[in-house]
């Protein structure tokens, strides 16, 4: 897998944007700014997914993360005010000594991963897969030539989404159903967690002792 030409230009633009936005997410003083930077980081990563040929996942990322989860985050940030941090009265990070130690070890981890482990591992992988890659690249070129052209005429339409859907409903059918149950549990759980005592009393399923305490106070 090698990106060339404009693909590599877009790769550098979006990867640098993702990293910068991620850094600013962690460093911003205002939680709303953090959320907006996280949105731009997620969009940049979605663009990287498109570069990798996973259009469906990029669409899901934008719809679910940016359209759903981050809007939920913004609502909660606005419900829960964090004034002291924004005004600069309180430090945004924990105790400095522990933070320095954590950052030093993270830098060591990052250095070893980025400089040593990943390039070495990739070289070994490449040596193992070189012949297979050459065979499949010829096959893929032939397949792509047969695909219908896109409306602009520049590129070919991809059948990636169809392949993902087929795999999701055949090989991944059981996990898919379990995921639907997980989402149902999450809906019920968040409704249960977020309701007030008054709403619990209205639903008439509150412990009588708690009810007595509430009446006394």
């Amino acid at each position: 897998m090698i990106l060339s030409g404009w693909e590599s230009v877009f790769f550098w633009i979006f990867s640098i944007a993702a990293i910068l936005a991620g850094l600013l997410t962690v460093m911003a003083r205002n939680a709303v700014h953090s959320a907006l930077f996280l949105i731009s980081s997620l969009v940049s990563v979605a663009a990287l997914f498109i570069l990798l040929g996973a259009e469906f996942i990029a669409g899901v990322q934008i719809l679910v993360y940016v359209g759903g989860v981050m809007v939920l985050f913004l609502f909660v940030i606005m419900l829960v005010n964090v004034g002291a941090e924004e005004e600069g009265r309180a430090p945004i990070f924990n105790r400095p000594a522990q933070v320095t130690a954590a950052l030093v070890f993270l830098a060591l981890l990052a250095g070893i991963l980025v400089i040593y482990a990943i390039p070495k591992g990739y070289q070994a992988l490449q040596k193992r897969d070189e012949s297979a890659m050459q065979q499949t690249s010829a096959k893929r070129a032939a397949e792509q030539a047969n695909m219908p052209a896109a409306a602009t005429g520049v590129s070919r339409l991809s059948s990636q989404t169809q392949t993902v859907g087929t795999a999701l409903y055949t090989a991944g059918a059981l996990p898919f159903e379990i995921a639907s149950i997980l989402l149902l549990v999450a809906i019920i759980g968040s409704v249960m967690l977020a309701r007030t005592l008054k709403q619990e009393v209205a639903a008439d399923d509150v412990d009588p002792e708690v009810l007595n305490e509430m009446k006394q106070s």
Partner: protein
Amino acid sequence: MNWLSPSLALMFQEASRTSTALESIKHPDLSKFLVIAAILFIIGVAGVLTRRNLLVIFMSIELILNAANLNFIAFSRYLQDTGRGDVMSGQIFTVFIIVVAAAEAAIGLGIVIALYRNRETIWVDEIDLMKW
């Protein structure tokens, strides 16, 4: 112009020696995606470890999960290119990670709201009832 030629020759020599590094910058491959994902992951871990605002910690967790997604997609593409293994499983896994992240965010934000209603704070330093 005669004095220029030795320096030009030296420059070309230098350029040819650094051409592999330049080539890898011009043509990013799997390892570049892994490096970007590792950096995003580490930024997320740093956020979880150092921030004291519970909401920002949640956002850092989302960043970590997203780095894992990027790894899955990059390896999925690599397997497609080599023709080895189950080529779609990386993307299927990513869909499930996004589902779990959505569920986690819903529950976590429910907890944040309940916590704020009871304790009037979302700073992790001040939430130490179970610490001894």
